[in-house]
């Protein structure tokens, strides 16, 4: 229904464009000068068609459900139902009207469902009538108003400018949406679990907090010692550390080699090949780590008499390191290439070899940029999910042994939220609290890294 109406409005828009332009041509044919190109007259009318439609559509989307709900529930208003029961009643009749209701059908619900359907159809048809009449009225008004000396280009351009501006707000809206979706659940979580227990507790067993009915959820003592996030934070940084131990040496050295030593031909092929590593989906790395690297390390360890878990932190961290190599190598390659040639020439003139120049002159000069690229790599390692979910353990052990299994923030979020979630359950809220801490940590890293890189760029530009 909405789709048909929408198509119709779009068609109306095109027609009004056509009429506007035609009117402009008619004016032109009477040898009067136009103040704008004919198509602006068309755009002008089309905008007059789009604005009322948009306003009415959004008003309807916001108010229709609430009004329908009020009307239906007014039947029950003086029968002493609680709010929750009323809501349930409403949801039931809605489900029934869609034919998705599976429970017991009472006459009450059936009556409300019928009322719901009739109200919906009234609402839909009145929407169609109102939208169409509003469009026709506004377009007719605008059509009458345009004449040879009316301004049409300025309003059209102002409108476009407003559209462009609104689009640019999308990024802010996304950030607001992220904070918004995380913050309420997080606050609710900390109402049940003290912040201190979360940040300094050393036991993480969210499975223990499985709520069987809501009376249990109100008892905070059952959550003591279940949501201590220290093992998870430690695991996250530990795996990120292992990843960086792989990624920094390899990434940095290949960045240096590509920037300083490699011939154009080698560079031309090696650089995109290394960057393929960054384009491989992380779930593929996860599969690789779980199926190949984990068992391989286990076998290797057993042959050396070590006890290695099949889901060791080493396997997850190592594979994650491979994934991060290209981030570090490309960024440090860029940074090193942008060090001015004069610094190199100065060093060569003093008789330094190439490696001495790199180590003593270029590297210190490029250090801020390199640090920035490493920080971005760390932020990626901390936020990486699939490799850890698939290749590292899901039980949160507090350990610094790379051969044992540990868990991370991201893995725990997935473990908790996979399948059905009950909002309002501390376990679900815990996932959002973890998400919040992840967001904050990576935000800080990103801001610092981006600022360092930007400062560095400005220095040499």
């Amino acid at each position, binding site marked *: 229904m909405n789709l048909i109406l929408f198509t119709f409005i779009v068609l109306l828009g095109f027609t009004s464009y056509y009429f506007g332009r035609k009117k402009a041509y008619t004016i032109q044919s009477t040898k009067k000068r136009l103040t704008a190109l004919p198509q602006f007259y068309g755009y002008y009318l089309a905008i007059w068609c789009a604005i009322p439609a948009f306003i009415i559509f959004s008003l309807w989307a916001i108010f229709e459900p609430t009004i329908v709900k009020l009307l239906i529930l007014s039947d029950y208003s003086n029968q002493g139902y609680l709010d929750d029961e009323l809501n349930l009643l409403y949801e039931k009749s809605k489900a029934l009207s869609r034919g998705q209701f599976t429970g017991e059908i009472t006459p009450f619900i059936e009556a409300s469902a019928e009322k719901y359907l009739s109200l919906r159809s009234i609402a839909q048809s009145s929407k169609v009538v109102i939208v169409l009449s509003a469009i026709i009225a506004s377009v007719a008004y605008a059509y009458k108003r345009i004449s040879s000396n009316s301004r049409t280009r300025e309003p059209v351009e102002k409108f476009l400018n407003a559209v462009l*501006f609104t689009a640019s707000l999308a990024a802010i809206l996304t950030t607001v949406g992220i904070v918004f979706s995380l913050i309420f659940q997080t606050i609710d979580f900390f109402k049940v679990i003290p912040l201190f227990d979360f940040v300094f507790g050393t036991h993480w067993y969210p499975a223990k907090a499985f709520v069987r009915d809501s009376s249990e959820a109100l008892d905070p003592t059952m959550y003591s010692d279940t949501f201590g996030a220290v093992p998870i934070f430690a695991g996250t940084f530990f795996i990120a550390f292992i990843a960086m131990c792989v990624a920094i040496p390899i990434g940095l050295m290949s960045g240096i080699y590509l920037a300083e030593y490699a011939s154009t031909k080698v560079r031309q092929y090696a650089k995109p090949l290394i960057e393929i590593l960054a384009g491989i989906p992380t779930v593929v790395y996860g599969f690789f780590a779980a199926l190949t690297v984990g068992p391989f390390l286990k076998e290797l360890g057993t042959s050396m008499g070590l006890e290695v878990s099949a889901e060791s932190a080493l396997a997850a961290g190592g594979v994650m390191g491979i994934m991060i190599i290209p981030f570090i190598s490309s960024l440090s390659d860029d940074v090193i290439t942008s060090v001015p040639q004069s610094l190199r020439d100065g060093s060569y003139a003093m008789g330094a070899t190439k490696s001495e120049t790199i180590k003593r002159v270029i590297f210190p000069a490029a250090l801020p940029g390199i640090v920035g690229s490493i920080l971005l790599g760390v*932020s990626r390692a901390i936020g990486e999910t699939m490799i850890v979910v698939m290749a590292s353990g899901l039980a949160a052990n507090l350990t610094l042994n790379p051969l044992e299994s540990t868990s991370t923030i991201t893995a725990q979020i997935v473990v908790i939220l996979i399948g059905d979630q009950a909002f309002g359950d501390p376990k679900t809220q815990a996932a959002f609290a973890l998400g919040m801490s992840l967001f904050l940590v990576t935000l800080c890293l990103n801001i610092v890294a981006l600022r360092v890189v930007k400062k560095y760029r400005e220095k040499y530009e």
Partner: protein
Amino acid sequence: MNKNKEQLLNKRYKAEQRFRLYGLSAIFMALLFLTIFIFKIFSTGYSAFQKTWLIVPVTFDAELMMLDQNPSKEDLQDADYYDIALKSMADLDPNANEDQENELKRMVSYFFEKEIKNELLNDPNLIGKTKEVYLTASDDLDQVFKGNYPRDLTEDQRRVSDYQLKIFDQLVANGKVESKFNISFFTNADSREAELAGIASSFMGSIFSILVCLMIAFPVAVLAAIYLEEFAPKNRFTDFIEVNINNLAAVPSIVFGLLGLGVLLAIFQLPRSTPLVGGITLSLMTLPTIIIAARASLKAVPPSIREAALAMGASRMQTTMHHTVPLSMPGTLSGTIIGLAQALGETAPLILIGMVAFVNTIPGSPMDPAASLPVQIYIWAESAERGFVEKVSACIMVLLGFLIIMNLFAQIIRHKFEKKWS
């Protein structure tokens, strides 16, 4: 004295060579990882494109099928095929006892009844006759035939019994086992049985998500980039927008999953597990990538173009829309494709919004529950059955194939259509 100097110089040259070698070996290591990786995926995955069939003689006995004389099309549809299906499997070994007959039945997929039915529906004249029918082998025998199953384990450690292996070997010796291209891998939806599982449902899920993502992210991102690059005044607010965009580009993807869960599902009540929600979540994630690419390519259009248009009397909006934006399109488009390729490989946010549900139907619209290719990889990788291992690798090959095609496409657009300003 001189000798000392020479020694020092030699040492320095050696250090130089060593350093160079470190760099070279770093690159070599990175490329080695890539090679191992691709080799591993291909070597485990290629066999999934073949499927093993058992050729079993089936007697279409009208009595066993409960059919009258001259059955109509409907009768054939409703006939009982289970008994003849069972009988034809049991007939593989005339001396089989009841347990062994059960084992014989499990040598083929549970789909075998339907395969026999299709055979008869295609040719109703078969009633009363015997024909050799191709039946899908069970996933374990499939793996045995491909040589991926260790046969030297003791019987209680494997899912295939010695008896099944014996019969299977007889069939192989008689040439009654055949390997053909696995079409069902591309046309079937997901299944709990490895031999029947296919990627069609997750593939459609991916396509729908990507389309939704494209339809939302591309217009918004391009408009935002135009505003920020061409019209925005330089003030605190636009700086704030810019910081926001750069940050969003580096926010972990799972956080976007939480956003989808907390806002799209919990507040807007959009349907769970659907490509619609997945696409919206992915579009928020790709937005910054496309904005950054579009801004870069707008910036690359030389100011002289704008000045020329303005000098001819065009307004700023006309200059932008008629000249700058079209010239920047190749760069923007290739950036968009790269952003979409990233979105196509994304798993974590989709898991959080419930696209991991087991879906055994092929979704027909973005509002139907679906999985996506990377999520399918995750689901299969978590399954214990051996038959899924090669499926995972094959699914990865399909996914990587798409990513390669998309990236090549982006390269081609960039090189073919982008104007070089010098």
